[in-house]
């Protein structure tokens, strides 16, 4: 096994917000990411899944240094990113890039597709010749499936999927080694989603990228990931090889997510909803439950879950899970999931 | 350039950071304290100042109120224009620093027995500013121009006493029929419709100034502009920058150029009296047109040597509308209201500028006339209030049935303060309920004239000429400004007699009698008589206070400063 390119160790991000007036100001802390650790090998794809509010996007931004980290470390090829100053971190953008969720809003409406894609080149290679920049830009457009003659069009002249292709071209123009995709397809139609996922998969193969792919449902991640991490309220519930996770989820939360995967058949969908595992909503992030943070929504909870915090522990097969009952439960999937 | 100035400029430049900084030396910023101490005035035997006490730079900067509406003397009506025109032009008569009439272009004159024909003997050494000779024909041409209907001058009304003026203005007679005749090149006669004792004074006003015929015919509408204007006074127009400044320069062709000490005169227009004061304080003006009412106390304390106040030929009073209730045929009520005002409080606490409390129409000091003074002028205010209450009740009013009236005035701070004070005095002494109504000036004038909705209204008069008649004629039956609806045949008869009376003492007695009749009819509530108030650089001499507030620059001169350093700065 090769050395991991990215090591995330006990990473935590805390947001402060203030309530009350000027005098009785009261600080509240929101732990968006709370002690996440994982390694990522070169060329590997890690899928990160969780409901909205589980902290997955914050985790993505923390890895890139776009938000302030309150604890833990991010090591990139042996170098700690978390301690770097703004300028040094900025230099790392050449190696680590991100694709955002809302493809249209993430593009500056006042810039042409070409300028959007070329801007990182202007920034990091100010001496690059114009022609060379344009050539590279056209090449990138071609690579992501855009027509090079659309170079002077504005974002509002493209569809959502095409905008995401621009976003991907833009993120890859500097030849990064790691691409973090923060729900890159959740704003797109289902038919387009597959195109984009396939595109990313092809590019990853072609460019040898390490990929972090974030989504809020497991089916999207399944196709592209080597390993999957399931997050809940800023913590990792399970980190497992794709094959074993989809065959036999270890954590009740993973199982719950699996059940809530949209099913094409309306009858089955109704049935799935009826036996929905997930009870109620995610608790307020300001009032985290004691014990297992999932226990109040978990249909399989026991007394112990309310008091003891389950540690993320490694099982015999190498997967990681944070559940007291992981071994005793059998959450194998009876109906093979589609996709 | 001094280093300190450099730093200032840099500071100011960085303050704005936009405009390029020029290196030009500015002439502002001389602190007043250093400028304001003149050396003692030393006079030579002929009464002129010793050259050794004069400042090197004989320049005066006069704040002049609003922008003059015109420099064509025949159209000029406003006070700001008249100040400038008095320097530029000279009529047949002129005024000395104390406001007395002195020979102008006419060296002497005769008045006929019937007081209707004036013969003027003009000086023979006069020229226009362009060097052309000036003679009686120029004056006849100019007076005809002023009265020509085609000129359409509003100032022409001042010349109405001239024979056939009304008919010529109405277009019924040609200008040649006006009462002017040319006896020879330097002698002319003016015939009047009737005796007009103040006529010589009228000839010193701009509408009677001569204009250069060639000049007018060459430039037409443009003749009063910079570079065009030819004049006959002590100064010529050097530059007119509208609403910025009007610069006059001493005319070497003026007959008494040798006597004129002030070389240059700047008239600086200003729409705001406080700005003028600030410009004066920062050394940009030597003379302000006025000072704001609310700064009197402060200026008195900080600029006692500079602050000058002097009686002016104007009165501030309230008028009654005699054609409507409640004042129609109600002299007791009118007298009650007249009595119940404490004028001393108004002048001391409200207007604050040394205005004189007044019990009559005509201000004191006009051509030697002593105004009528009613009995109650000598009472205490308590006595007046007591009598006022008696009259008020006699008129049928009481606490249960109080009088409700409006005081109407044109919008201005001062008018409002005065109206407020009077309202509270009436309320306190009599229990009158007063409503204050302010109106824009022309709306106010129209309402006054229509005599329908007015009850008590602000009135006042500033005379055109140095004669009490200017005040009295307002109350004649049918006069255009008789907004009171006053009509008293005996008053009118007295004015008719004043119009024909030649003997000064008798005429004065007639006017006194007319004023007495008017005051006994209680047509107006006298409040105070005006004063002029301004700041003057103590180094500026040669001028005197006068009731007309006319101050020709040609008599002025600037003394040296006591501080030799400052003297050095006077390039």
């Amino acid at each position: 096994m090769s050395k991991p390119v990215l090591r995330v160790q006990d990473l935590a991000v805390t947001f402060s917000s203030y309530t009350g007036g000027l005098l009785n100001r009261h600080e509240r802390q929101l732990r968006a990411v709370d002690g996440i650790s994982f390694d990522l090998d070169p060329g590997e794809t890690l899928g990160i899944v969780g409901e909205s509010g589980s902290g997955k996007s914050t985790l993505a931004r923390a890895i890139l240094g776009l938000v302030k980290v309150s604890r833990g470390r991010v090591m990139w090829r042996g170098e700690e990113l978390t301690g770097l100053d703004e300028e040094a971190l900025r230099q790392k953008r050449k190696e680590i890039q991100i694709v955002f969720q809302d493809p249209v809003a993430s593009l500056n409406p006042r810039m042409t597709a070409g300028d959007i894609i070329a801007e990182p080149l202007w920034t990091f290679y100010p001496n690059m010749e114009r022609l060379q920049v344009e050539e590279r830009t056209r090449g990138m457009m071609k690579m992501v499936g855009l027509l090079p003659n659309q170079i002077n069009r504005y974002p509002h002249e493209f569809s959502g999927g095409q905008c995401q292709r621009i976003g991907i071209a833009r993120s890859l123009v500097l030849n990064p080694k790691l691409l973090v995709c923060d729900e890159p397809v959740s704003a797109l139609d289902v038919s387009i989603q597959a195109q984009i996922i396939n595109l990313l998969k092809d590019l990853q193969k072609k460019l040898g990228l390490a990929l972090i792919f974030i989504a809020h449902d497991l089916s999207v991640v399944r196709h592209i990931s080597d390993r999957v991490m399931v997050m809940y309220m800023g913590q990792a519930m399970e980190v497992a090889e794709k094959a074993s996770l989809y065959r036999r989820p270890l954590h009740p939360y993973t199982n719950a997510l699996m059940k809530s995967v949209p099913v094409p058949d309306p009858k089955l969908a109704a049935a799935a909803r009826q036996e929905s595992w997930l009870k109620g909503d995610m608790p307020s992030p300001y009032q985290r439950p004691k014990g297992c943070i999932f226990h109040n929504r978990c249909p399989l909870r026991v007394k112990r879950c309310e008091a003891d915090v389950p540690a993320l522990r490694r099982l015999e097969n190498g997967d990681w899970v944070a559940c007291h009952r992981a071994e005793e439960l059998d959450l194998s999937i009876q109906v093979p999931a589609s996709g | 350039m001094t280093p300190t100035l450099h730093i200032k400029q840099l500071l100011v430049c960085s303050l704005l950071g936009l405009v390029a900084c020029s290196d030009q030396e500015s002439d502002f910023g001389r602190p007043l304290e250093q400028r304001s101490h003149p050396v003692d005035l030393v006079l030579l035997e002929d009464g002129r100042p010793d050259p050794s006490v004069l400042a090197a730079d004989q320049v005066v900067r006069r704040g002049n109120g609003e922008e003059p509406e015109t420099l064509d003397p025949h159209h000029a009506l406003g006070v700001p224009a008249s100040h400038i025109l008095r320097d530029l032009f000279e009529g047949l008569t002129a005024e000395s620093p104390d406001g007395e009439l002195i020979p102008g272009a006419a060296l002497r004159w005769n008045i006929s027995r019937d007081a209707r024909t004036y013969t003027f003997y003009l000086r023979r050494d006069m020229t226009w500013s362009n060097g052309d000779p000036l003679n009686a024909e120029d004056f006849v041409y100019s007076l005809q121009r002023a009265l020509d209907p085609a000129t359409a001058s509003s100032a022409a009304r001042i010349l109405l006493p001239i024979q056939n003026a009304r008919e010529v203005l109405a277009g019924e007679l040609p200008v040649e029929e006006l009462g002017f005749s040319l006896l020879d090149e330097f002698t002319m006669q003016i015939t009047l419709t009737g005796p007009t004792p103040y006529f010589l004074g009228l000839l010193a006003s701009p509408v009677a100034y001569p204009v250069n015929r060639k000049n007018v015919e060459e430039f037409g509408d443009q003749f009063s502009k910079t570079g065009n204007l030819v004049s006959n006074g002590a100064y010529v127009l050097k530059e007119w920058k509208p609403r910025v400044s009007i610069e006059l320069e001493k005319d070497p062709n003026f007959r008494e150029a040798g006597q004129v000490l002030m070389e240059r005169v700047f008239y600086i227009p200003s729409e705001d009296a406080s700005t003028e004061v600030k410009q004066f304080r920062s050394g940009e003006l030597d003379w302000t047109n006025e000072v704001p009412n609310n700064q009197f106390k402060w200026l008195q304390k900080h600029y006692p040597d500079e602050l000058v106040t002097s009686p002016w030929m104007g009165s501030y009073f309230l008028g009654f509308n005699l054609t409507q209730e409640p004042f129609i045929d109600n002299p007791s009520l009118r007298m009650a209201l007249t009595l119940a005002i404490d004028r001393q409080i108004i002048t001391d606490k409200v207007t604050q500028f040394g205005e004189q409390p007044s019990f009559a129409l005509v201000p004191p000091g006009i051509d030697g006339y002593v105004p009528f003074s009613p009995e109650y002028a000598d009472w205490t205010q308590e006595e007046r209030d007591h009598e006022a209450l008696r009259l008020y009740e006699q008129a049928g009013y009481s606490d249960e049935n109080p009088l409700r009236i409006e005081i109407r005035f044109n919008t201005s701070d001062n008018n409002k303060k005065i109206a407020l004070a009077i309202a509270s005095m009436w309320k306190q002494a009599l229990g009158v309920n007063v409503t204050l109504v302010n109106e824009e000036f022309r709306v106010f004038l129209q309402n006054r004239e229509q005599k329908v909705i007015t009850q008590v209204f602000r009135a006042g008069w500033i005379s055109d000429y140095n004669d009490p008649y200017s005040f009295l004629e307002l109350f004649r039956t049918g006069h255009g400004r008789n907004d009171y609806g006053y009509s008293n045949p005996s008053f009118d008869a007295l004015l008719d007699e004043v119009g024909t009376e030649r003997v000064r003492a008798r005429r004065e007695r007639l006017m006194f009698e007319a004023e007495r009749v008017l005051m006994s009819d209680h047509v107006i509530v006298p409040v105070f008589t005006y004063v002029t108030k301004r700041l003057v650089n103590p180094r500026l001499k040669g001028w005197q206070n006068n009731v007309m507030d006319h101050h020709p620059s040609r008599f002025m001169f600037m003394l040296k400063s006591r501080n030799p350093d400052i003297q050095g700065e006077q390039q």
Partner: protein
Amino acid sequence: MRQEGLLRHATTRLLGLVPTLLILITIAFFLIRMAPGGPFDGEKVLPPEIRANLDANYHLDEPLLQQYFRYLGQIITGDFGPSFQYKDWTVNELIAQGFPVSATIGGLAMLLAFVLGTLIGTLAALRQNSAVDYSVMGVAMLGISIPNFVVAPLLILVVAVYAGWLPAGGWDWSWQRMVLPVITLALPVIAYIARLTRGSMIEVLHSNYIRTARAKGLPELLVIRRHALKPAILPVISYMGPATAALITGSVVIERIYSIPGLGSYFVQGALNRDYTLVMGVVVFYGVVIVVLNFIVDLLYAWLNPRIRYDVT
């Protein structure tokens, strides 16, 4: 295609000016004539003979409708007629003298306000909810709420009277005489623009494409300059149209207090003196200036915002 759209847009707007101005002229003409009193009414009443001469001279003796059409005919040739009040000048001359002064003061004030306002606003937005933000915006609040007739005398007193650095008033086209009026005029506008900029800058900085720009590895300054500034000043641009019109057509208060021969007092003086031609001239001139400036703002807006370029027809 884009140029064509813009050109057509421009032509339509300019043609639209004609009826707008015609309505403006008509309303203004009859409104000022309806006001009580006339140009020759004063405390001192004119004898009827003189009054008749004046009325004839200025055609005031004609029926009102005839005067209206006479005025229209005259104005088509670009002639605003002679001023009633300032007898030596035509209205054209007065505007030609006053407008450059007002436009200089107003233009400089607008420039200053735009530069400082956007700068301050951006600064406050970048340091949102910090001490810098609070103090800058607090000062801006003061700038808006203190009227210029309070600021101006204070400035004069401190800078001109006590310090003697600058003249207290008057005009000669020197920079010294421009400084105080420009600052006074600009202050509330700086404050307003700063607030506008801050608000929209905060909004823009939270937008997704700014996040993208940061992710691209752009230095923060470049993020602001290239991506955030343009959209953030859009509201400022649309505010600047009418604001510039108001500034460059002159402010009565500023002109009075600093004794500046601008256009603003002509409007007020003209109205108070019932100087019909002067009021009309200034009104028509204002109308043209406002329409032209709004038009320029439209073009600027289109330039800053490509999405609306194609909407213009």
